[in-house]
């Protein structure tokens, strides 16, 4: 097991290095200079001084080495758009909001998605099945920014309990979390439903029934556990996506998260921020995938991680 983890860890480092390298050369290949984006009529001398300040006057390989050092030490230096603050500062101050929102989103989407899926499967081809699946289709097909705007324009302005926007209390989390959660919820519900339907026809379910187990025990202990495997698979990517914030929803609800940086850093050619967001997202993603792989073993004992070594 330890050997497996160590091996996976090395692979993770290698993956991140490849991503970082690709990103570095891609972002330098985009036309447009980070220092010119503001277009404030700087003199040539001022632009040259700024370039020197950000080491942009160095050769590309030199800059690459500097970046690798920054990535290794998780110190990305000052942002090119918000110069007084370092990239680390900006991400640290924004991460808690994105994390809270992300956890609420995960909570909403997983709990309601699984529950909806299970109920739909148990009441296959009946009213509740159709209703949940219609909900799922709506959840997938209305983009979260449309939902956000609808929530603000029709719910928040009418129900005092929900603030229109901004951040601070649990009440601020609910509407954006629902907007963000409805898509993943729908995917999870559909996945759970189809897997449940398949699992419920298996022989061991019949056996369990024959043994006289209660319906609840059959569903929770035998059916659901097997049906959840595909759901766990998508949890890795979902968690990474949700924890790193959402550009659109955070913007609409004026949430001070980090989602904005994933998009604005690119239009601003904010090189240090692009590198930082890339590293963060890819790290969370590979770590989550690793956790998912470990989880497989716990949920389904038939999957053995260290089978090869044995």
């Amino acid at each position, binding site marked *: 097991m330890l050997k497996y983890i160590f091996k996976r860890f090395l692979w993770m480092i290698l993956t991140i290095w490849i991503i970082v390298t690709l990103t570095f050369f891609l972002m330098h290949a*985009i*036309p*447009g*200079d980070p*220092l*010119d*984006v*503001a277009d*404030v009529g*700087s*003199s*040539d*001398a*001022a*632009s040259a*001084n700024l370039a*020197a300040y950000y080491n942009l006057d160095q050769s590309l390989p030199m800059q690459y080495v500097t970046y690798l050092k920054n990535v290794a030490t998780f110190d990305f230096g000052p942002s090119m758009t*918000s*110069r*007084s*603050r370092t990239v680390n*500062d900006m991400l640290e*101050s*924004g991460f808690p909001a994105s994390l809270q929102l992300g956890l609420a989103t995960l909570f*909403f989407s997983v709990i*309601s998605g699984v*529950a*909806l899926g*299970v*109920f739909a499967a148990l009441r296959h081809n009946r009213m509740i099945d159709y209703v949940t699946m219609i*909900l799922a289709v709506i*959840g997938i097909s209305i983009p979260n920014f449309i*939902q956000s*705007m*609808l*929530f*603000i324009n*029709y*719910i928040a*302005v*009418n129900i*005092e309990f929900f*603030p*229109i*926007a*901004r*951040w*601070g*209390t649990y009440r*601020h989390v609910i509407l954006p979390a629902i907007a963000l959660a*409805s898509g993943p919820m729908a995917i999870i519900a559909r996945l759970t439903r189809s897997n449940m339907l398949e699992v419920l026809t298996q022989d061991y379910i019949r056996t369990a029934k024959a043994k006289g187990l209660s319906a609840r025990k059959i569903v*929770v202990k035998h059916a659901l556990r097997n049906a959840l495997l595909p759901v766990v698979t998508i949890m890795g990517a979902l968690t990474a996506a949700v924890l790193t914030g959402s550009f659109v929803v955070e*913007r*609409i609800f*004026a949430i*001070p*998260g980090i989602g*904005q940086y994933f998009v604005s850093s690119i*239009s601003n*050619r904010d090189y240090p921020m692009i590198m930082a967001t890339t590293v963060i997202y890819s790290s969370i993603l590979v770590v989550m995938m690793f956790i998912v792989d470990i989880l497989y073993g716990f949920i389904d004992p038939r999957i053995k991680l260290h089978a090869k070594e044995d």
Partner: protein
Amino acid sequence: MKKSKLSLKVSTSLVAAAIFAAGCGGNDETTGNNNEGNGNNDNNNNSNQEASSDGDKILIYNNGEEPTSLDPPIGNDEYSYSILNNVMEGLTRLEQGEPVPEPAMAEDWEVSDDGLVYTFNLREDAYWSNGEPVTAEDFEFSFKRLADPETASPAAHHSYWIAGAEAFNEGEGSEDDVMVEALDDKTLEVTLENPVDFFESIVAMPQLFPVHKETVEENDDWANSPDTFVGNGPFVVSEWENDEYLLVTKNEDYWDADTVNLDGIEYVMVEDSNTAYQLYQNDEVHITGIPSDMAGELIDGPETAVYPRSGIEFQRFNVEEEPFQNTNIRKAFAKAINAQEIVDYITQENQPVMTGYVFDDFAHPAGGTYREEVGELHEFDPEEAQQLLEQGMEEEGYDELPEVTFSYNTDDLHHTIAQAVQEMLQTNLEVDVTLENQEWAVFLDAQRDLELQYSRSSFLGGYNDPMNYLDNFTTGNPMNRTGWSNEEYDQLVSDALAEPDPEQRFELMAEAERVFIEDAVIVPLYYYNSTFLEKPEVTDVVRHPVGFVEFKWADLQ
């Protein structure tokens, strides 16, 4: 099982409620929930609430975004300076009524006969928010810091008025050669490169605000936190949650504190204009911008405030590319585009149409505005445009006009304007123009490198003088971006800079503008407006055509 049943109930009912509410819709009436609108941050779970207790006059202003930096030479944008302008103060400040400098940190000043040496006398009761007196050394340090290549200020060119600053910024001169000197604690002597009489309004600009020397020398990050920020303006920074809000409260030690009516200003950072509009409707902010898709509907509304802005929307020709090497062809294009229609039907914010290049409302020494004294130099004239085009094509020996591509940066408004321009050129000149859009940074890069043939442009004025505009098109200026170079124009601009007599100087500048318009280097479109929604209880917010929002005189009734 019980658990998941319960959460199913909760979540489905939430989703159902959401869909129901979205479905019935149509309720525009917002019941004013004023609880959160009194400046109490009770929607923030923050501890320091004393500053904004009940009954205080806290104006809530949507700043749109987080300030880039509260360090004067670094921030250099509206998000930063709309705050900085109210927590710091330069040697002068623009008056409440007209954009004319009045004494601020400097109580008075003398100018030498040749117009080159300014001696500012600082007021005795000028203090930093940490209690220390504001000294001439602070100013000397700050002006040199703006020019210092190590500071790498994007706004360094605003120091170039001071003799020696440009060379220092270019890495050639030394700090000691920058001609700003503290004669004693309260006397500052500045020697200029040229005898520009508008220097007294230059020193009102946030780029030239002083900083507290010791604080800045000790701590590089001094401007990042309310605990370390040291200001000298009508307000002090009290609370700051990045990307959420920044609260400033009245500075009781400010020399003119009696004039200040507000107890504080809460700058909130709500980027999405629709969300901001809903917050405004719900009385959670006092001032915010107008969502651009609602401009036509709101522009004449009772709560809409329109301020003229020194800034222009225009188009550049690349005079190095065919067919725009020909003056008459350029002129034909310029005269074939009806800017009034663009303002009336597209932007819908009542922007004044340009009849020249320089901002109309600059004060002219003869008494009126610049435009009144100089006269209109450009107008829409489709018939003359047609003649000019024929003439130009004959001069170049064209049977058919070479292909023309108009480029703009990707944006809904620019796209619509480009389409209208395409239509006007087709109707008035029978010229087919291809449209092309590019992402902002790509577009800007191509425009600077003269890779675009004909492109959209804008310029926001920084200081209160026609020179702010005219300087841009001198040969080799980074703002030129047309390939245009005209000796007569360059000479007129440099003569104007060297001219100490105001009347003479304006004469030279007006002549330069005539040369520029006669050569049709640009297509003038319209001057900008700043438009805001302001609650009726808000009074005396000052926005000059140049500079940034002033809350020194503002009040909540």
